[in-house]
């Protein structure tokens, strides 16, 4: 969405135009859904949180000053609402540090797979592995790969330093790759058969 169109949309929402708000929700619901679902994992919680986030945006639209893209501002609200939710539920220990954490010891182990495996199973496995990563890792991975955000945008959304974002993305990919190789020792047929 172009900046000028964004500006006009914001003005209309500030004036109480519900149709303009509908357009904003339609344009950004996928971004919010992907962030929230990746962070909280449960669909019921995700739906409620997404609704709360958009109502929060509607109520506080005047606080958007236009210093960043609208999607970045919305993503930032979604991220921080989820962090507050996870803290209240005590589900995640949120760590802000450049030190890379140890592997998640509480996660359910993924046993090596013996037998045939195809790309669809690989996809399910990768998503399962991602869901077991620490919340900051899975958030930056989602923003980077799924939403195509730049490092700068991810920094603005999450408040993490630029270097931390890059480390988390790189480390998360290494962890996913290690887990996949551990689970599928004979990964070659899965990778190369699909390319034939």
């Amino acid at each position, binding site marked *: 969405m172009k900046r000028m169109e964004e500006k006009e949309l914001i003005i209309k929402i500030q004036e*109480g135009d519900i149709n303009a708000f*509908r357009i904003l*929700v339609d344009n950004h619901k996928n971004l919010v859904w992907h962030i929230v679902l*990746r962070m909280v994992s449960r669909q019921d919680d995700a739906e409620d949180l*997404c609704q709360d986030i958009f109502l929060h945006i509607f109520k506080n639209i005047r606080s958007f000053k236009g210093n960043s893209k609208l999607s970045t501002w919305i993503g930032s609200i979604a991220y921080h609402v989820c962090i507050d939710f996870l803290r209240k539920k005590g589900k995640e220990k949120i760590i802000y540090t450049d030190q890379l954490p140890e592997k998640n010891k509480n996660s359910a182990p993924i046993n090596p797979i013996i037998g045939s495996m195809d790309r669809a199973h690989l996809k399910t496995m990768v998503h399962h592995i991602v869901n077991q990563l620490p919340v900051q890792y899975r958030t930056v991975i989602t923003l980077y*790969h799924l939403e195509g955000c730049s490092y700068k945008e991810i920094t603005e959304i999450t408040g993490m330093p630029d270097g931390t974002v890059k480390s988390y993305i790189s480390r998360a990919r290494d962890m996913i790759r290690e887990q*996949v190789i551990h689970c599928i020792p004979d990964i070659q047929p*899965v990778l190369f058969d699909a390319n034939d």
Partner: protein
Amino acid sequence: MEKDLNIELNKAIDEILRKPPDIGIPADFTDRVVFAAMKRQTMKESLKEFFYKCLIAIASFIVFGIIFYFVTVRTPDMLLSVLLQNWRFILIVAFLGFFVLFNDQVILKYLFRKSRSFF
């Protein structure tokens, strides 16, 4: 060979991560959010209307008081005496007035909206 494998695996993982999750956002999500926002906005406007009408009622009372002062009592002591003698009556009328106004402007409108959405 191992290097090729790692490259291919990285490509496969990146491709998977670029695809949206299997659980999609509900189809009626936008409608639900917009409806909730409309309810909130309508309640806010009802309360605003109630507040402005209260201000008009108070202003009317003050104007009436001024007219009453100049036409009837003409001294501040007499006006104060009239007010103190009838303070219960004035309070009851004021309370009833604001109560009726609040129910009309806020509660009834809310209940009608709710019954419309229910049916």
